[in-house]
């Protein structure tokens, strides 16, 4: 902290320290989210908080804004230690957050949203006074130089305007600290300019702003200091002006070199099994082209919201796409619904397997047979359960699913074994193209390597795999080739021999000029 304070003296002159967070520790069941983290914020500065997905940025800020309670550590705000119980207390102290997923009521007006929970009432405390709310909101909008009708229904406004309302709401609490979580994700260039004007305006007023973002160019442009987090720990705080982006990326990734070499030695890139040409859907998917070869694992990397899942769902027919062509084994195919995709041998394993992949309350064998129960059903509609059980036993053995037997309920299995059940389901359905969306999400380390082994084995057997993953080591370890996406576009395609974490991050943050 001394080091950063000194640096700051040189660049910005002495400023009041607004907030000090020290030794913040937080665990969730099974995850040590924050390991004695620290963070410091001065009045009138914009302080970037960066790190890979899962580094603990959001958790730290949720503790600051009263959404979560910390397990350990101190939060010192304006020289006094504070303990927060809930978001309202934080707001009243002047600590506000503008969430990535905006927390507004779409059916209410702008002013009603801003003053929710503290409506203006008359003497009788019975009736709400919307006129007063509108007047106050209008005054704030004027001060912010914002052209917006306080009576406009929020659901009909653009995302940028909704964000401005969130900011206005924060200001109406007389905020001293404003946390912005990925504020530019849904904004256009000119809207970002407006937002930055607003940020500079607030900065001049002495508000301390925490700016969470993945976008290095923006961080370079708007922030004064950068704090880097990695795997729930504090890494370093640097001055933006004296740092280059590469340095920050190195800090984010860490200097540890992941020792495991690529596991999957594939042979040739001869047979194209899937080709996607000019796939488009609005802002989510922009002109996506790629080929998938037989027996390869194609890694899809990128930040959250880069459009990877959207592409996968479009190929699988779960969402519609606007334009584009899909070829399976050289044949042009039309995929409008998931059953069409399955008919062409494409299986999709959702990142949220509990919601989309499994019927948790049912048994292992019921889950494995779910997608092709027809195979085991006679003309009268009776299912031959004994052959279902036999088949399930085969797969339990083949994929080494740890379960007492095929009759065990899936909810009693560990995350890794649940994932294997989903894989078994699609294998039984004769899928040659398997799309894995975050295959190791929520799976512990030991089980991860088993899933990796299984993926390699499947590829060796001639299955073609698309693996979407936000974990860079995983991408580098498993893929033959890596496609990097950013904002719906493919920004890079890397051969595994030349790919590195730094290079992937560079492409993943490469925004459209």
């Amino acid at each position, binding site marked *: 902290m001394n080091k950063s304070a000194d640096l700051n003296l040189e660049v910005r002159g002495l400023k009041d320290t607004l907030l000090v967070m020290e030794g913040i520790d937080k665990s969730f069941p099974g995850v040590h989210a924050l390991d004695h983290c620290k963070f410091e914020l001065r009045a009138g500065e914009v302080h970037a908080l960066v790190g890979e997905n899962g580094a603990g940025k959001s958790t730290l800020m949720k503790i600051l804004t009263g*959404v979560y309670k910390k397990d350990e550590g101190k939060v010192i705000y304006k020289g006094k230690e504070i303990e927060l119980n*809930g*978001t*309202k207390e934080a*707001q009243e102290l002047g600590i506000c957050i503008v969430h990535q997923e905006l*927390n*507004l*009521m*779409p*059916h*209410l007006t702008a002013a*009603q949203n801003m003053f*929710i*929970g*503290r*409506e203006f*009432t008359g003497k009788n405390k*019975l*009736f*709400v006074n919307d006129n007063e709310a509108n007047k106050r909101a209008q005054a704030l909008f004027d001060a912010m130089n914002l052209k917006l*009708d306080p*009576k*406009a229904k929020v659901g009909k406004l653009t995302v940028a305007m909704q964000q401005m309302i969130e900011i206005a709401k924060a200001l109406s609490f007389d905020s001293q600290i404003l946390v912005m979580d990925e504020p530019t994700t849904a904004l256009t260039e000119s809207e970002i300019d407006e937002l930055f004007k607003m940020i500079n305006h607030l900065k001049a007023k002495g508000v301390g702003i925490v700016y969470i973002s993945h976008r290095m160019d923006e961080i370079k442009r708007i922030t004064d200091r950068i704090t880097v987090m990695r795997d729930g720990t504090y890494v370093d705080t640097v001055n933006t002006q004296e740092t280059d982006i590469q340095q920050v990326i190195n800090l984010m990734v860490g200097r540890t070199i992941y020792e495991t070499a690529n596991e999957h030695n594939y042979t040739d890139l001869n047979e194209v099994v899937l080709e996607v040409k000019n796939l488009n859907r609005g802002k989510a998917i922009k002109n996506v082209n790629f080929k998938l070869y037989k027996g390869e694992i194609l890694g899809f990397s990128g930040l959250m919201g880069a459009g990877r899942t959207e592409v996968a769902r479009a190929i699988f027919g779960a969402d519609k796409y606007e334009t584009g062509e899909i070829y399976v084994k050289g044949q042009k195919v039309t995929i409008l619904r998931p059953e069409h995709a399955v008919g062409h041998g494409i299986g999709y394993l959702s990142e949220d397997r509990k919601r989309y992949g499994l019927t948790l309350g049912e048994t292992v064998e019921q889950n494995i047979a779910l997608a092709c129960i027809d195979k085991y059903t006679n003309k009268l509609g009776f299912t031959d359960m004994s052959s279902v059980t036999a088949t399930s036993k085969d797969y339990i053995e083949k994929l080494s699913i740890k379960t007492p037997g095929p009759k065990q309920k899936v909810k009693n299995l560990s995350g890794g074994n649940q994932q294997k059940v989903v894989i078994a389901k699609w294998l039984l359905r004769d899928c040659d193209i398997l799309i894995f969306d975050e295959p190791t999400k929520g799976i512990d380390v030991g089980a991860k390597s088993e899933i990796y082994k299984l993926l390699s084995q499947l590829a060796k057997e001639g299955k073609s795999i698309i693996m979407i993953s936000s974990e860079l080591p995983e991408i580098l370890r498993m893929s033959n080739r890596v496609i990097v996406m950013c904002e719906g576009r493919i920004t890079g395609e890397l051969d595994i021999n030349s790919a590195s974490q730094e290079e992937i991050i560079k492409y993943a943050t490469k925004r459209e000029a």
Partner: protein
Amino acid sequence: MEKKSIFNAANAQKFLAFGALIILLIFFTLASPFFLTFDNIVSIMLSTCVNGILALGIIFVIITGGIDLSIGTVMTFSSVMAGVTITNMGMPIWFGVIIAILTGAFFGFVSGTVISRLKLQPFIATLGVMMITKGLSLVVSGTKPIYFSDTPSFRKIAAGSILKFGAEGKYSVPNGIFVFLVMAVIAAVILNKTKLGRYNFAIGSNEEATRLSGVNVAKWKTAIYALCGAFAGMAGIVMAARLDSAQPALGAGYELDAIASVVIGGTSMVGGEGTILGTVIGAFIISTLTNGLKVMGVAQEWQIVITGCVLVLAVLLDTMRKRGNK
């Protein structure tokens, strides 16, 4: 921007229901000479009262995105309680009215507590309360109707008339209609002018965001169900006054008509939006339809079929309109 057209989304919703009502009125007037008579119109309005008051209550719950299946039988139990208080115990009428409203509010409070604090689904929680109140009505009344024969002025709450005109009061408007309209005004004020109304929309629009804004969602949700129950209690009074008796076996099924009224009036079952005016018009559409078909001589069983079709059609139109807006 908003003033460009009166046919923007908020208005279209009202116009759709209102237009449907006008079309129905014109259609039945042309179809039957007995439809557009003073007596018949009064009879339509009178038959709207009970369902209308129930609908005014349940719209609050529907705007939160919830449902209350118990209002029909809560209404019955409230009327039985009024009967017990007034006839069996000999208490004054106003006291019986208050007891009925409190009874309704109590069961709403129970549903609301179970839903918001114990996190039971509204459908299940209120299904339970529906059966409880259905049973209690029979238990408390001894399965027999309670007549208000000792208090002849009780029935005036619905059947009497403070507004008469024409020669020797030839045309009289029954009080039940005024009770309904007054309740509608009260509901509109609560929904649009009070904190409860504001949180009502907020919860239906985005419950989590409302909670994160520091609003005690559980408390307000409970209050909303209690309010819905109070309206059911008032409906019980009007119902008992119309029949001059508390009928313990009646009431089940009324909740569905009330839900239909709300939905035809343009309120989404998903929550977050809805208007009192729409609900009032929705209630009138249902009773106009029933009455008109009856006047035309359509068999009762077919009336139900047609009402069902209208309900589905109304909701379908509304959904299509909303899709068009996006």
